[in-house]
């Protein structure tokens, strides 16, 4: 719709009524150094194509001039409301409007404005240079331009337009030309037909003329291969309905089975692939450039009117649609509506996103690697643990077996030693009893020595068996009343036949411990045996048993007033076979205290001793709670 009126201007060869009176010339007075320009537009001010032209002109003029420009626009609206009836009034109005202003340049856009200016220039703008812009050189036919006039026209070369289309669509066998039956449609179709005629031998041309939009749609839907469509202008159908070309293109293009080529850049973006198009922008720029030369001092008569070449222009989306590579477009082609690729549009964000993603992936990968590493380490550790456990189990079993073997060995050795010992003792006794008269005193003393030795050895074996028994006996922890167990052991000790008088003092008040009865009894008994033994030579032997409850256990002690020991041996005396006295002074095997320590250690307790030589000793037991 937006271009219909504009395009129709060049067809407008219709009536031009002369203005009757043009009395006062529109000659502006000198009011400053600014150059003043008036642009006479044929159409009303809102026509889009005309707006394109005006914008191109204004921006070209402003940017191309060294002086400041004062640009005026007049929109004659001479197509919808032909000038014939009021041209005179309009001239008068313009005279009044611009009476005080002197213009340096007049532009006339499209034939009606040009014709109006030519007709009234002597009245309105005498001696002011005039630059015209028309779409077709033929619009100038029959016009007397006179002097001080120049301008540009659009070069709508349809043949070269079609040639370009054929280059882009090699193998094309037929061309469907679409046009309407409006005046403008007919004019352009006749131009197109005229230019296409020489190709008719090689290419089949089909002219679809005056079809309604639905009919055009149907016709384009099922075109044979190797066909292209050439859209000229279709503003009116055979039934007399009027359309806008843009509207037509919008409807027929999406379902068209062949690419549509067009004639102006006003149609670009609405469904045409493009072509060598009349560009309104180039048109405006071209006209303005001529104006600039005039403003710069060139005489219009010395500037030959010339055409503004069509521009190869394309719609990027349509090129994609029909698979036409941009590489094949002629040099200088303008490609519009290029949709920035996702990459171009979001490059920054994509880079950031990808970077983040990469970073994240990297971190994830690191974490995964780390996790894998840990898993492997854990597996290895588990395996190692399992191996270790296996080895520990095996070693423990081996150790247990060895221990049992050793125990059996100790047990057997002890027992086996006892049997011959019994023989030695028995027969030496029998010898002494039954045959003593056959022996002399010395012989008898030898036999006594043999008996003492066997007794000593017997004791040693018993002690060793006790010692090994402590280790082998199963622990049976039980709640034990300290007082009763101490009294029981002390009573047993008292009962041992001895000619000595020993003062036993039990100083234990209550208190219970969790301990193995056998172990504790054995330890206590050995301590008491020890105390009894080492108080042998004391006049008033006194043995005290005491106990004290501590936070983490109970301490029991046996204190005597015997010979005591040197504190430097305080720990050594608990070692097996460790003796501090000669056997003739204090007999013993050196096993008793070792048994105590072993028994206490087995139940998680301790055994230690303190002494002041000559003043007695105190032996302690600590039983954990």
């Amino acid at each position: 719709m937006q271009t219909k009126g504009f395009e129709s201007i060049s067809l407008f060869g219709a009536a031009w009524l002369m203005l009757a009176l043009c009395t006062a010339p529109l000659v502006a007075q000198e009011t400053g150094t600014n150059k003043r320009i008036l642009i006479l537009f044929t159409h009303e001010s809102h026509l889009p194509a005309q707006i394109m032209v005006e914008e191109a002109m204004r921006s070209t003029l402003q940017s191309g001039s060294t002086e400041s420009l004062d640009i005026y626009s007049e929109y004659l609206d001479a197509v919808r409301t032909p000038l014939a009836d009021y041209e005179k009034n309009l001239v008068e109005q313009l005279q009044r409007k611009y009476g005080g202003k002197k213009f340096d340049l007049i532009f006339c856009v499209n034939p009606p404005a040009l014709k109006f200016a030519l007709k009234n220039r002597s009245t309105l703008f005498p001696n002011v240079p005039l630059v015209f812009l028309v779409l077709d050189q033929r619009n100038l036919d029959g016009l007397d331009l006179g002097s001080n006039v120049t301008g540009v026209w659009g070069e709508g070369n349809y043949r070269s337009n079609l040639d370009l289309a054929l280059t882009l669509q090699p193998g094309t066998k037929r061309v469907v030309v679409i046009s309407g039956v409006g005046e403008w449609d007919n004019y352009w179709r006749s131009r197109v037909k005229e230019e296409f005629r020489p190709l008719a031998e090689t290419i089949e041309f089909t002219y679809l003329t005056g079809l309604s939009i639905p009919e055009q749609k149907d016709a384009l839907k099922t075109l044979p291969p190797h066909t292209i469509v050439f859209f000229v202008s279709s503003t009116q159908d055979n039934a007399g309905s009027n359309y806008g070309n843009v509207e037509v293109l919008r409807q027929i293009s999406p379902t068209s089975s062949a690419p549509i080529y067009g004639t102006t850049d006003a149609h670009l973006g609405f469904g045409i692939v493009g072509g060598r198009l009349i560009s309104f922008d180039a048109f405006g720029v071209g006209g303005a450039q001529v104006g600039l030369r005039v403003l710069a001092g060139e005489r219009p008569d010395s500037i030959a009117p010339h055409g503004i070449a069509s521009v190869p222009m394309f719609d990027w989306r349509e090129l994609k649609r029909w698979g036409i590579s941009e590489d094949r477009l002629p040099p200088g082609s303008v490609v519009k509506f290029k949709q920035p690729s996702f990459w171009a549009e979001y490059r920054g964000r994509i880079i950031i996103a990808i970077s983040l993603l990469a970073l994240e992936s990297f971190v994830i990968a690191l974490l995964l690697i780390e996790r894998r590493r840990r898993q492997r380490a854990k597996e290895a550790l588990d395996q190692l643990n399992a191996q270790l456990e296996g080895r520990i189990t095996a070693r423990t079993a081996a150790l247990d077996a060895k221990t049992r073997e050793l125990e059996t060995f100790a047990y057997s050795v002890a027992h086996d030693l006892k049997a011959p010992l019994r023989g030695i003792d028995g027969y030496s006794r029998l010898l002494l009893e039954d045959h003593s008269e056959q022996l002399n005193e010395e012989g008898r003393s030898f036999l006594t020595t043999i008996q003492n030795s066997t007794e000593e050895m017997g004791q040693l074996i018993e002690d060793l068996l006790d010692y090994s028994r402590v280790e082998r006996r199963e622990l049976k922890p039980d709640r034990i009343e300290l007082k009763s167990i101490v009294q029981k052991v002390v009573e047993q000790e008292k009962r041992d036949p001895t000619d000595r008088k020993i003062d036993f003092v039990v100083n234990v008040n209550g208190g219970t411990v969790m301990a193995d009865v056998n172990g504790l009894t054995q330890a206590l008994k050995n301590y008491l045996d020890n105390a009894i033994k080492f108080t042998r030579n004391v006049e008033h032997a006194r043995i005290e048993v005491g106990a004290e409850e501590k936070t983490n256990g109970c301490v029991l002690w046996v204190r005597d007033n015997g010979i005591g020991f040197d504190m430097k041996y305080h720990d050594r005396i608990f070692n097996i076979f460790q003796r501090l006295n000669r056997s003739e002074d204090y007999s013993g095997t050196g096993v008793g205290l070792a048994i105590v320590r072993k028994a206490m250690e087995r139940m998680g307790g301790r055994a230690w001793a303190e002494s002041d030589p000559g003043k007695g000793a105190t032996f302690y037991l600590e039983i954990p709670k």
Partner: protein
Amino acid sequence: MNDSIGPILIVEDRPIDLDLTKRAFVRRRLLNPILEARDGEEALDYIDRWDAGEPVPVLILLDLRLPKVNGLEVLQRLKLHPKYSAIPIIVLTTSGEDADIHEAYRLGCNSYIVKPVDFDNFMEVASQIEIYWCALNTAPR
């Protein structure tokens, strides 16, 4: 004494211990005939002889550590025997181990005595056995 005094069976592999035991009994004037078995198998062989009519012992002294069949097995076999389980059996051994004592009593021994090393004590033990088991105690016939 007279023939009605039943024999005592001593199961002992060590000749010294056997000899000392016998001497101890002789010293205590024990009149019961002494039967000997030098290993576990020999001890169990007596069962056939008793079945064949030989006099059944009134007391058996049994060592635990014996060749071929050990003392605990001999003890078990005798104590499970339908005819001879009533014979009093005294385990007389060098072992004072808890495990042995416990097992021997579990299998039904009538007494458990650890052989003393000391001859005097050994004599005392022989004397006590004689007094208790042969004089005081009434054994089943």
